[in-house]
């Protein structure tokens, strides 16, 4: 679920951004950023949910899975999101679930980002046989359906945790980022200033980190955001099938137990709507935030 068709940044035919004086660029970007409603709205929603996920649990005394109140209560003043059929507080689960959802997004997305950009940079910069091999690898992983691979792998695990889930998600969802980064790096690698750096005898890794990466930083940020959202969706899918972390709390697990305990047919909409809505809001606003960023960084799109 990491590959969003034609997602902004994923297939940027407009070519690499021009290297410009950093200062001027920064102020210019800021100028447009504060005037871009997509960016502001997306960022606003993501940040408020993030803050809720980080600080919300501190205001909840009990364990989110504990039975605290009356059973099957619709939302009310005391239990804002109602209670489950065991008397668990849906709001508490939601807040904790947000936290772990951000965690898996950051972690799974992070792993994928590191692998993807590394492969992309090395392939794009080195070229030749290294490129051939890495490109082949990327294509192979790209074709494998990530969720199915993950199901088969995690089915064999005896103990499942957030950490291991993140690693596996990262390992399967990096390829399109590698592809995108590679094509960018490919065009930047032939620029004069990179040639200059190469002539001056600097090491490959330093050239990549000091000359190439900074010039496509906007691009990298956007890739990370997409990987972040993708990881959240994959993790939710795994959780829903029952392959989520044992004993954990997450929005996907909430959906699983809502379905398992018949919330649909018992009419307990307050149980299955919040977790799905939470995921949709996080991922959706990340995407919208991304379009905003694209418009800010890419001058050609600003007029629209």
């Amino acid at each position: 679920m990491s590959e969003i068709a034609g997602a902004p940044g994923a297939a940027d035919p407009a070519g690499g951004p021009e290297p410009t004086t950093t200062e001027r660029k920064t102020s210019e970007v800021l100028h447009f950023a504060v005037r871009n409603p997509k960016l502001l709205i997306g960022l606003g929603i993501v940040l408020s949910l993030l803050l809720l996920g980080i600080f919300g649990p501190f205001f909840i005394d009990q364990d989110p899975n504990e039975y605290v109140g009356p059973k099957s209560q619709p939302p009310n003043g005391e239990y804002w999101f109602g209670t489950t059929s065991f008397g668990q507080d849906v709001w508490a689960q939601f807040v904790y679930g947000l936290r772990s959802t951000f965690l898996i997004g950051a972690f799974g997305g992070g792993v994928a980002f590191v692998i993807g950009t590394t492969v992309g940079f090395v392939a794009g910069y080195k070229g030749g046989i290294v490129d051939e091999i890495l490109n082949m690898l990327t294509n192979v992983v790209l074709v494998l359906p990530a969720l199915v691979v993950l199901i088969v792998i995690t089915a064999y695990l005896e103990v499942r945790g957030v950490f291991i889930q993140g690693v596996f998600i990262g390992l399967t969802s990096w390829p399109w980022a590698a592809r995108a980064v590679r094509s960018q790096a490919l065009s930047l690698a032939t620029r004069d200033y990179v040639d200059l750096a190469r002539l001056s005898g600097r090491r490959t890794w330093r050239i990549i980190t000091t000359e190439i990466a900074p010039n496509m930083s906007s691009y990298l940020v956007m890739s990370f955001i997409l990987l972040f959202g993708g990881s959240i969706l994959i993790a939710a899918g795994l959780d829903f099938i029952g392959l989520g972390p044992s004993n954990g709390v997450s929005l996907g697990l909430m959906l699983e137990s809502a379905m398992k305990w018949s919330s649909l047919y018992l009419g307990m909409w307050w149980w299955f709507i919040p977790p799905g809505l939470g995921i949709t809001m996080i991922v959706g606003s990340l995407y919208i935030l991304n379009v905003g960023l694209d418009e800010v960084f890419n001058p050609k799109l600003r007029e629209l």
Partner: protein
Amino acid sequence: MWRYIGRKLFVYLLTFVIAVTINWMIPRFMPGDPVRSMLSRASVGNPEALERMNEYYTGVFGLDTPLHEQYLSFWAGLFRGDLGISVMLFPQPVLDIILRSVPYTLALLVPAILLSWIVGNRIGAFAARKKLLDNTILPVGYILTAMPYMWLALLLAWSLGIVADVLPTANGYSPSLRPEFSWLFISSLISHWFLPFLSMFIVALGGWAIGMRNMIIYELEADYSNYLQALGAPTRLIRRYAFRNAMLPQITGLAVQLGTVLSGALLTEIVFNYPGLGTLILQALNNRDFFVLQGTFLFVVVGVLIANFIIDIVYVLVDPRTRVQMTGGAA
């Protein structure tokens, strides 16, 4: 062009080999004893029968032979179309079980992918024309793509199936019918198919609409568009060019999206207890039937590879430029 296709074929072949290898490796290198953990879930009351199944599966895994021999015999079995024998449906061959589920999954996937692609592209192209429209369609599209497949499925099952009570929410057809070629049975199939299809269609729709909208905007900002505009060409013409050029990346997008839509189909099936591969995977998981699980995995990979290949060929046919490009070397 041949070189392009050959190259693609090579990648797919490689992918297949790797997938098979992963499949072979997982039960052998994961911690724990796969045979025992499978059989403990099989709820076989009597120890002798358990022993017999144990013997069979240990034999199948060939755990007593050297690794490279195990690997080769695994491949040999594969070429005979032998995916092993199911634990939960012992002694039925895994392949038979999978083949019974495939039609249902295809019946969801193929229409959902094709229709959402066609409709999504239209909507996206439409949206790119007007700012007002764009401002409503864009967020809606993003929210749709951001939706977990199973959540939309739950919402539809709840609203249309339970609250409004207009469509069935479970199974592939009504349990009161015998499978046969009659209008009664077919209409039952269609009514049970509709909700899972609809929920997949809607989620996929958003992605295509956004993709197309973005592509068109990029195309409209491209040099050739500006040039045409400067020449005073009618806007309609420019848009038509833009639409055509934007179609090509959307075809590639189709290939890239396959895995995602497929995952979505599996999750959607589970919500609706639709008797396709997704429900089969869940049953295999619940019964610890690793043979069915891994057989399904291989089957799905092969399916995705074939679909990719078909898309590649379509791409070549639609875009003559590929020949030139591909001989140039960039993939």
